[in-house]
């Protein structure tokens, strides 16, 4: 984004110049993304128009196009932002957990589910809308999550114990969550902690150890 500061002040109110332009820009962008998520949750991505988004965000159409060339690019930005936010949640949960590997996995899984439950519109965007808006993004974010998990488990050192496909494990997780989200039960996601721990560990530790870890969360 290479915008001149003055372009934001054009036609602005008397207070506008006192807001630093980058903060104003960020604020607009966040409002637009939030408006997109809210509208999509209510009437799906296809049913949402640019007019809906700018209306909810209280920005002008021109402002929308300063940030995003079209609705799909706006959608991708929203998905990327929420993924970055989830990554941040993971990092924090990791830092606050005990040093044992399985304890870290449990803490991270719990934090992740809490975060998803706290932002139902965004969760819906990611789980329900994304696969039809942009099927190609799914493998990319799956890779991101699997890589993070494998770093956590230091799988390179113990890859002989890999019995199942981590990509399938990701699918298990996704469909399990999508079922709850689609049924409008996002607030129940934190109760899926044992299942999530089981699914995440199954490919790396085998069924018995994964079940054992899952039961520790109950």
């Amino acid at each position: 984004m290479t915008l001149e500061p003055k372009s934001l002040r054009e036609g602005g109110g008397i207070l506008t110049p006192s807001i630093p332009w980058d903060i104003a820009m960020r604020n607009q962008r966040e409002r637009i993304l939030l408006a997109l998520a809210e509208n999509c949750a209510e009437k799906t991505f296809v049913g949402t128009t640019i007019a809906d988004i700018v209306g909810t965000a209280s920005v002008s159409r021109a402002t929308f196009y300063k940030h995003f060339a079209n609705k799909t690019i706006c959608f991708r930005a929203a998905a990327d932002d929420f993924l970055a936010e989830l990554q941040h949640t993971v990092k924090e949960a990791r830092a606050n957990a005990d040093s044992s590997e399985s304890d870290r996995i449990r803490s991270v899984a719990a934090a992740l589910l809490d975060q998803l439950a706290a932002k139902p519109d965004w969760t819906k965007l990611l789980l329900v809308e994304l696969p039809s808006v942009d099927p190609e993004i799914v493998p990319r974010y799956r890779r991101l999550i699997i890589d993070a998990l494998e770093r956590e488990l230091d799988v390179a050192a113990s890859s002989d114990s890999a019995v199942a496909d981590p990509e399938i494990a990701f699918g298990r997780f996704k469909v399990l969550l999508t079922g709850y989200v689609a049924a409008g039960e996002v607030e129940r996601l934190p109760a899926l902690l044992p299942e999530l721990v089981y699914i995440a560990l199954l490919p790396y530790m085998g069924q018995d150890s994964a079940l054992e870890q899952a039961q520790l969360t109950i």
Partner: protein
Amino acid sequence: MTELSDQNDTFPLGAPDGDFAQDLHLWKLPRGRHGLPRELVEQSQRERLLAAVIRVTAAKGYQASSVADILNKAGVGRETFYQHFKNKEKCFMAANDALIADLEVRAAEAYAQPGSWPERVRHGLAETLRWFAENSQVARVMMIETGTVGTAAGDYFHRTFRRFTALLDEGQDNPTLPNLASIAAGGIFARVYEEVTLGNGAKLPSMLPQLTFELLLPYLGEEGAAAERDAAMSEQAAGEPTAERTPSISN
């Protein structure tokens, strides 16, 4: 509205991928006083409408297509359309139902054959993968477009998935996790969905051994699931029909 819209359809499978662009007017009954029973006429209209909504959606997308597009494609009048369906959404969802019913019948039939439970799961899965390979183009359109229909479609997904996982529940003698059937089937569903939406549906049958393993793993553990994977591999090697047909060069 009328009782017509509540009937159970089986999808008109005269229209697999190869005939996707087939002109639906060929399916029309003769005009005029043909003396055919009213029931048959209605069934023919309905089948054409279901096939038409899929074709129109494939060509234009669900949102951009209109009732007029659908009835023109099907060769029925506007009044006839509304005798069968209240609106475009009902027509689209009825086509979806018909497709899923067709898949369910085939999968359940394979699953009901005598054998051990893991064996029956494997055969049900094999039939499911073959169905998606045969109907990959139609399935792709419906999977992508269902997401655009509206918020009701999310609930629809949930109910359909539950019906499939209910089939698996009888194998659950290991009640350690409440969502075991979802966990078992979810990975398979996600993979099928992804391959079909990315246009790779034809290669699904070749993935049977790995997917059998993943489907049974949460129930049977590594050893039992690996035994079924190996059984799937030897059945494939023994020339069970798969979708891995090499295209003929001589045309």
